[in-house]
Every structure is written in C-alpha cells, then in structure tokens.
C-alpha cells in the first residue's frame, strides 16, 4: 500500500510529520506493510495535511488529516470521515491547468526516475538537440514573461545575454520570494526541484552559461534542504556537471541563502548579495544581462519562469502560447492567501477575472464576512475593492486598473480590515526594508508612517501631504520598493476614503 503525506513546509507546519508517524504506527499495529512517500503539496491549504492512498482507480484523498484519523484509514477507508474521493476529481484541482506545477504533489520530489516518468527531462533532451539560438527562439515564441514581478519577456532577456560578448556568463535564479501572499516558488522547489534545475540547465545551454546560482531566502529552510539534496542527486546522475546528460556541455548550480532582506529580491541587489556585499540596488543601465554577476552577462529569472521552460521545450512554444489572453500568454500559478476560504495554489491560464478568482475559486473569506479588498502582487501591489473585480488577470489589464499582478500572490481581507493601518504597514515595511540608496524611499517612507499617524489621529490636512509624498517616492526612487510602495497606500486611500476619515469624524 502506497501512502502519500506531503513534506511541503505548509503541510508540515500543520502537522504532516506527526501524521506520517501516526500512519506508520497504525499500519505496524495492524501488521500491514505500507510505503509512506513524502510528496509536495497539491496546494489546497485548507485540506492540509492531505493524505493520499494509491488505488488502481487513482489516488484517494483524505484531509485535513490528523494523527487520530490514521487507524480508520486502514480499518474502513470508504467510510473515513476525512475522505474526499479521487484526488484528481477534487473541484479545486480539476479546474486547474497545471503546466508549471504538473508534477508538484504528484511525484516524490527527490526521485529522478519518478521525475522522468512524469515527463521530466524531455525539454532538456530536446534543447540539447537544438542550436542554442533555436532554444532562445522557442522560449521567445512561447510568450513567457518573467513571473517575478516585472513581466519582462524571458526570451528577449535570454537573447540579450546570448548576444553579449565574453566567455563567462551566469544563470541566476531568483528564489527570494519575499512578497506576502506568495509561496509558489517555495512549493515548486519543495515539490519538484528538478523542474527548476532542468530549466536552469536549458537556460545555460541557450545563452552559453556554464554556471548557475539559486538565491533562496533564509525563511525557507525546507526548500533550501530539498534543493540542496536535489542538486547533489542531479550531479550524481549527470544532469549537472561537466557534461550535462553526456552532451559534452557543462552546467552546474550553486545554492546561496539570503539573510532576511526583502530588497535582495530586486535583481541587482540580489547580485550584490551573491557577491558577498550589502544588498543595495544598482543603477540600471547597465542591465544585468550585459553586466551582471561580477560584471558578467547574467540571466536573472524567477523560479517560476525557469521552471516553466522545460514544458515549453517539451511541448513546443505554440502549446504554451495558446493559453492566456492578450500579451499574457500561458498559465499563472495564482496564490490565494490571507482571509480566504479555499487558500492555496491554483494554476490557470491568464484571463479569469479577479472576482472569479476570489469568490468562485477562493470561496470568499475564511471568516464568512464580506470581502473588503484584495492586495495583488505583494506588499507593493495595489488593493483592489470588489468594484474592480471584473478586471481580467493579465499584466496589461491589471496595470490599466492601477495595479500589478506581480508574482500573483493575492491577499484577501474581510470588512474588519483597517485600510489605513494596512497603508501604514506598507510605508513601515518600505522603511524597514529600504536599501538606503535613495532619499525618497529611505526618508519618504518614514515620513509616510508619520503622515499616516497624523491622519489616524484625525488630521485631515495631512491627506494632501501623503499624496505629495507618494508622488515624490513614485518619481524619485531608483527601484520599485520606493517606487511602488505608494500603490498600496494610494489605492487604500482612493478606494476606502472612509477608513482615512474615521478618526476625523470621531473628533468632530
């Protein structure tokens, strides 16, 4: 009997290790021989820990599972109180189009044979048989855009690095994932690390880089451990090293761990951090593609961008490009978080409206109270009120509505949320995380906190000041930390003016 218990950090944080132990004990007590496999997460946070049992008809799901549910799984599985039926038929999963996350939760993340059996390495094999320019063209034709936030076309970035002169180039994977509400990078690395490794190897072959770095934030101890083991396995199997899959072309990857700095997710700060420096932002130009790590041409891509490359190579650019809307091609792993009933990871083609995502998929709030707002794209993303829920999920569509999709993390708050407090938090966060290089960000964010405190105390004359300050930050900041921190502040102010007037009304 084969049983799956996720080793994903979220499942473990909800007791998955104890569940695995209880299942082993209950099986032993019944004299049953079971194999307990630790997979990634299927991404349904409200059902974690989600236990699955393999049957000839497919896997059966049970959750949210606790140790006390273990015995019944063996004694009366059909009547089990936590039974959810076939995993693949659970509506939240069934409605998805999983391309980037196809194997996450399905395979044993550290079993290379399992990886290959589920379609892994097909993309790399095809890339090895192609000319590097053709690989870059395939990625460009797919329409894939950077999933880290800025949405820059990945193929164009690769072409720039490929064309840059010099013998030494680098592939850098940005796994800093600092945005609140985001966890797709973490889930991918914990659930299917070879997909990232394969994507980086393809990138290396395509642009002529023989060395890669993955920069993971220190807040992700499980992902760090899994990727470290996956890299060792990949080297052992000849997937990485002097001759990738026996091709005679070399590529290897080094893992680097961040140190608790949000701004190090910005690509040039990240490069400084890998170089062993303070994580301050560099002025652009030069672009990292021309002068990146140690001044060498460097591809910096998000985990999801790189992990999507294998399926594009395996299935062809057209297959991927056919999903999506407008200039947002392919699928996006949405992350539903905060006060949401059905939180987790939901990969779909671009194009659902925000309302469909929050209400139909997310099921509204966890508290049962009405949704007040949704912050899309992390701490620098705008708050969307329900009035904007008809906005289709796409880069241009969200920009037109005054926001951004960023890394596609969505934080839902219910009507009890205080938007002024959240605006203040955005400024405070910017002050804490500012790299200090430019005054509008470093000082402006501190002034922003003070100004919001004045508004909270009932001083309505501070509102125009806040707007001015936001304008100064927007225009005068070198990077998007200072430049975009005004988004959550102004969107809160514009859409929820009543939250900024409450103290004043009370005073009057």
């Amino acid at each position, binding site marked *: 009997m084969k049983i799956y218990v996720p080793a994903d950090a979220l499942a473990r944080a909800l007791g998955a290790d104890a569940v695995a132990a209880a299942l082993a004990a209950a099986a032993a007590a019944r004299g049953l021989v079971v194999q307990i496999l630790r997979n990634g997460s299927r991404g349904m946070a409200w059902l974690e820990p989600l236990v699955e049992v393999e049957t000839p008809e497919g896997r059966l799901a049970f959750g949210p599972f606790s140790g006390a549910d273990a015995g019944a799984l063996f004694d009366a599985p059909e009547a089990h109180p936590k039974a959810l039926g076939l995993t693949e038929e659970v509506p939240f999963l069934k409605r998805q189009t999983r391309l980037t996350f196809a194997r996450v939760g399905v395979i044993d993340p550290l079993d290379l044979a399992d990886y290959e059996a589920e379609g892994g390495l097909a993309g790399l094999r095809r890339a090895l048989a192609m000319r590097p320019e053709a690989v870059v063209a395939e990625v460009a034709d797919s329409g894939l855009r950077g999933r880290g936030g800025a949405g820059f076309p990945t193929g164009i970035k690769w072409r720039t690095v490929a064309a840059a002169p010099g013998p030494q180039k680098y592939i850098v994977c940005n796994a800093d994932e600092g945005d609140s509400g985001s966890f797709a990078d973490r889930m991918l690395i914990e659930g299917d690390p070879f997909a990232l490794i394969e994507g980086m190897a393809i990138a290396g072959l395509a642009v002529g880089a023989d060395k890669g770095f993955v920069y993971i934030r220190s807040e992700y101890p499980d992902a760090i451990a899994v990727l470290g083991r996956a890299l060792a396995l990949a080297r052992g199997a000849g997937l990485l090293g002097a001759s990738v899959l026996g091709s005679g072309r070399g590529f290897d990857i080094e893992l680097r761990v961040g140190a*608790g700095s949000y701004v190090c997710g910005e690509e040039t700060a990240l490069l400084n951090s890998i170089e062993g420096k303070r994580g301050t932002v560099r002025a652009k130009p030069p672009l990292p593609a021309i002068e990146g790590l140690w001044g060498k041409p460097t591809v910096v891509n998000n985990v999801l961008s790189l992990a999507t490359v294998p399926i594009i190579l395996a299935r062809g650019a057209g297959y991927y490009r056919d999903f999506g809307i407008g200039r947002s091609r392919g699928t996006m792993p949405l992350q539903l978080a905060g006060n949401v009933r059905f*939180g987790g990871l939901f990969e779909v083609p671009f194009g659902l409206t925000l309302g469909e995502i929050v209400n139909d998929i997310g099921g509204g709030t966890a508290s049962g109270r009405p949704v007040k707002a949704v912050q899309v794209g992390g*701490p620098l993303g705008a708050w969307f009120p329900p009035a904007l829920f008809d906005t289709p999920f796409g880069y241009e569509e969200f920009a037109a509505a005054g926001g951004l999709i960023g890394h596609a993390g969505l934080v839902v*708050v219910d009507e009890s949320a205080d938007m002024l407090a959240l605006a203040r938090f955005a400024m405070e966060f910017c002050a804490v995380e500012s790299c200090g290089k430019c005054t509008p960000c470093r000082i402006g964010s501190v002034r922003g906190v003070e100004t919001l405190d004045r508004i909270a105390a009932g001083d309505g004359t501070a509102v125009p000041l806040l707007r001015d300050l936001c304008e100064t930050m927007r225009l005068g900041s070198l990077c998007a930390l200072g430049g975009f921190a005004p988004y959550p502040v102004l969107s809160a102010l514009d859409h929820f003016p009543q939250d900024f007037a409450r103290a004043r009304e009370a005073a009057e």
Partner: protein
Amino acid sequence: MPEPSQTNRVAEICQAHAGREGALLPILHAVQAEFGHVPSETLPLLAKALAVTVAEVQGVVSFYHDFRAAPAGRHVLKICRAEACQAMGAVALAEAAKARLGVDWHGTSAGGVTLEPVFCLGLCAAAPALMLNGVLAARVDVARLGEMLAEAGA
C-alpha cells in the same frame, strides 16, 4: 581579542569556503550557526580571510536582518507580520506574545525567548504563521502559541 578556540573555528569556517566566489554571506551564516551570533571579535578575522576591510564586513553584517551582533535568548520566536497573516489575526497574536513574554520586538524575555518579526514565511494560505526555534507552525492562535511556548519550556 577572540578566544583561541573561536579563532580556530572561524579559521576553519573560512578555510571551508576558500576559493568560493562571494563567500561572505555563506561564511557569516556559518559563523552565526556556530556561535549563535556574529561576534564582533571575529570581524577582523573574516576581513583578513576575504581580503576586505573590517568596515566592509561590518557593513554587510549590519545590512542583513538575519545577522545578530549579540546572542539571542535560548529560544527564538519569529512571528510573521506581513499582510496575509495580518488578515488572519497576526497583530493580535503578536500582541499576545509581547504581553506574555513582557517584551517588544527584538526583546528577550526573562525566560529566554527572543521575539523577532518576520515578513512572510511562505505559509500565507494557512495564516497566521510563526517559527519557533526553526520549526514552522501555521494557523496559530493565541492558545496554540501558549502551548508551543510551554512545550519548548519557555
């Protein structure tokens, strides 16, 4: 002056990272894992090993939130302060922790618990989240936090 044993250990750590490009962060992580903080006496040793100035090493140590100049308490409790956790009661959870421990952020309680803020642990779909002594916990309420601290003997 650092203790001789500390000097030796730092030399070993630097040696283990010799030849690695941009080794300062990995070395600082290793030093902190060894001593629980980055002792100021070790900075000249690191500077020498990496052929940079002490001021540069100091600048890096102070830039990153993870590196401590002084030891933490026996227990380290990191509570997520970011938006998704706020949406599920993280502010109240943090206030309860502060009250119970009698400290503010970055303080260490009489019982040896250091309270630190953290901005997202990637568990935002099961908020609020925290990390106690390196172990993650999700969907934590005030009662559960109390149990966890009691179990840890804090």
